[in-house]
């Protein structure tokens, strides 16, 4: 196959991924919507949204441990599975299948793009965007193997679709070779790890926002009921960030090694470097805030949210508008 054919198949795969993810998003929305009337009809005082969390504790805790003991005590008579209407469950299941299919299609698209240019497909804004969407979906789908994340689907797939839409329109760049400073094995190491950690931070950011929303607007309001408890959401937020943060640290170190290879100095205070550093410092502040006495978990979560806002700025603003050595956007 010629390079042009590969590139066009890559785009075809990307469009298919977007179509499939749209269906997935609708499915997840249907799942959440399907939960609402059922609950409101019954007018239950028991927070049925506990279901996923209870499952999570039961999966981890087994017969031992306080948490699972409490869950076991609450379980009789309120079988959580039974409370999710069949149609909602079906919608959620279908949505999840589509999410997996969409992730595979995104991967195929990135791989074909790489094949068409005979290089690692992380060389410009468009390719970063697709890869960030891919890794966010990989985190979501991969995490979904371990616990039921149907409640989270809509909130992950919708932003991913927006990102893909932007990548396809505003940031689209034709497949081409790399500029000399990008021709390095560090492109594969540094940019890939950076994008993986962005995927993790993205899901962490979404869970943090859901936690803050549930905390702010009350656990019983609307679709917020479908989410796990505040405590559980906060823990999940932390869990995602402690995986993402070392990866981001590695990104910083690998970037410095590469900067020394390509630009002669491992740290140049280039705008992109500055922002990577700022992001690192903000997330470090989040991890500290979480264990600082006198800081509420809510305030700490806001710091995590600020961290991801910095990531968005770093990607969408610094890449395009700031003059620096990282000017690879292809725009």
């Amino acid at each position, binding site marked *: 196959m010629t390079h042009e054919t590969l590139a066009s198949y890559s785009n075809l795969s990307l469009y298919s991924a977007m179509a499939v993810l749209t269906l997935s998003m609708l499915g997840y929305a249907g799942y959440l919507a399907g939960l609402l009337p059922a609950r409101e009809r019954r007018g239950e005082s028991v927070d049925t949204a506990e279901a996923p969390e209870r499952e999570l*504790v039961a999966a*981890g*805790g*087994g*017969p*031992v*441990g*306080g*948490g*699972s003991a409490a869950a076991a005590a609450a379980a009789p008579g309120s079988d959580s599975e039974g409370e999710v209407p069949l149609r909602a469950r079906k919608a959620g299941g279908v949505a999840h299948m589509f999410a997996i299919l969409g992730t595979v299609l995104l991967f195929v698209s990135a791989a074909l793009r790489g094949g068409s240019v005979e290089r690692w497909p992380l060389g*410009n804004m468009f390719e970063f965007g697709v890869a960030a969407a891919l890794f966010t979906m990989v985190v979501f789908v991969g995490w979904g193997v371990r616990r039921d994340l149907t409640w989270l689907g809509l909130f992950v797939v919708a932003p991913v679709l927006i990102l893909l839409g932007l990548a396809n329109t505003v940031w689209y*760049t*034709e*497949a*081409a*070779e*790399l*500029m*000399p*400073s990008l*021709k*390095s094995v560090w492109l594969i190491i540094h940019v890939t790890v950076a994008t993986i950690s962005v995927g993790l931070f993205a899901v962490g950011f979404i869970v943090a926002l859901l936690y803050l929303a549930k905390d702010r607007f009350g656990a019983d309001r609307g679709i917020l009921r479908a989410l796990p408890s505040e405590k559980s959401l906060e*823990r999940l937020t932390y869990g995602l960030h*402690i995986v993402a*943060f*070392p990866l981001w*640290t590695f990104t910083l*170190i690998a970037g*410095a*090694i590469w900067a020394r*290879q*390509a*630009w*002669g*100095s*491992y*740290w*140049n*205070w280039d*705008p992109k470097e*500055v*922002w990577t550093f*700022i992001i690192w*410092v*903000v997330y*470090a*502040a989040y991890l*500290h*805030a979480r*264990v*600082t*006495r*006198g*800081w509420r978990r809510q305030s700490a979560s806001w*710091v995590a949210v600020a961290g991801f806002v910095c990531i968005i700025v770093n990607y969408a603003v610094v890449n395009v508008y*700031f*003059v620096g050595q990282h000017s690879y*956007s*292809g*725009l």
Partner: protein
Amino acid sequence: MSLSTQPKDPRTERDDITQPSLGPVGLLRFAWRQLTSMRTALFLLLLLAVAALPGSIFPQRSIDAVRTADWIARHETAGPWLDKLGFFEVYASPWFAAIYLLLLVSLVGCVLPRSKVHWKAMRSQPPRAPKRLERLAAHDSVTVDGTPDEVLERVRGALKDGRFRTHSHDASTVSAEKGYLKETGNLFFHLALIGVILGMAGGHLFGWKADIILPVGESMANVAARYDTLNTGPLVDPADFTPFTMKLTRFDAEFESDVKGKGQFGSPRDFTAHVDFTKEPGAKVEKKVIRVNGPLETGGGTAFLLGNGYAPKITVKDAQGNVTYSDATPFLAQDNNYTSVGAVKVAGAGPAGKQLGFAGLFLPTAVLDEQGPHSVFPDLLEPALALSAFEGTLFPGGRPQSVYSLDTEGMTQLKNKEGTDLLRIWLKPGETYTLPGGQGSITFDGVERFAGISVRNDPGKELTLVAALVALLGLILSLTIRRRRVFVRVVPAQEEGRTVVSIGGLAKDDDEGMGDELEDVLTRLKERRT
């Protein structure tokens, strides 16, 4: 102070002072405690993030002095003020340094006492088991075969298999603890950050960097005088530079010409500098290449290929035909299509004691349209020189000036032959232009490429790298390992030969996996029975 209107008794007045005076030592201790508190560290971290921002928004002098000067000139009011406040030198400004130094002091003040505490904890035994294990958040109880003593022995084994450190304070309990590496990792992470800073400081003190623009065919030696710019750390003596030399024999450049899409056409694709490298005088000449991403280790600094451009060969003759200037003259690229600016300074005095100077553009693929002369592709497809000519004094007052531009203060621009308009010279390779008024001629002989080589030496980089990797390792340990305490108590069961094992777990932070941990211990305990 008392609000009482009663006459004051000296004795009671003394009692009114409820706050003890801190005194200078107390005040210092108070300040130290504030500085090393977690809240302050957190505040400083957030402040550091905010303080780093302006450096990415405003041009920085150390990165791009020209753009900085331009920005200040364009913002007449804000420019000078921001300059005074250090906004164009953020990372060398006192306020930025104040933040990270305070952070560093705070870090040391926090980490050293914690290291001491941790050192003691590492060498001491887990504490005595609480009386009522069922009060712990995670707890369980099972009945197993065996006498209490036998069972306790098996419990110890099961805990040790789970990498617990165990200790029995009495005959019926075991206290166990694991996850010491969490705090070890945490401390190593923070201490390693100091290593990173020390490495950076070392690089600043003992490092140097030097840049040179080297046209094809020319040689350079690693001596201070040969470089165009040289920055040395305070503790560097250029006399100690290793005496290597290199000659640029060829320079290859490739640009994108297949893909016509936006942002891609004309993008650089590959640059390679071929050099004849001699490690020291008398050593044999080695053929080497320097690429972007492929620097050359010289043994006394690393040579990087950081730029390139064109050096048109220009010859200037006087009216009698004597050569007054002949050189491959580097022109600096201003845009992605290598529209380049440069100047020719004919230092020898011409007629009437006036010096000649030319300034203008070199265009690798020249186009002349309503935008003026500019280049539309970075490679040499249609090269041309567009120059203006000046006469007068090239170096008024002997001030230092850029080699790429003319200081026209002491010069007047030449006019065309008719005297109707300013003289504009347009030359293609091989062409000669005869200057009006018997001033001689200028010839564009051809074009060479030049390589912008930067030689840098940073003796602190290894320390920084190792410290950064240690920090990463420490970080991973501190975030993934759980500090857990497990207590076990055995009591004889009512049935003969069986024992009730109560187990309880205590975690440092909220710890979802504690239940799992206890279950694992009990599973191993049961397996040991066979």
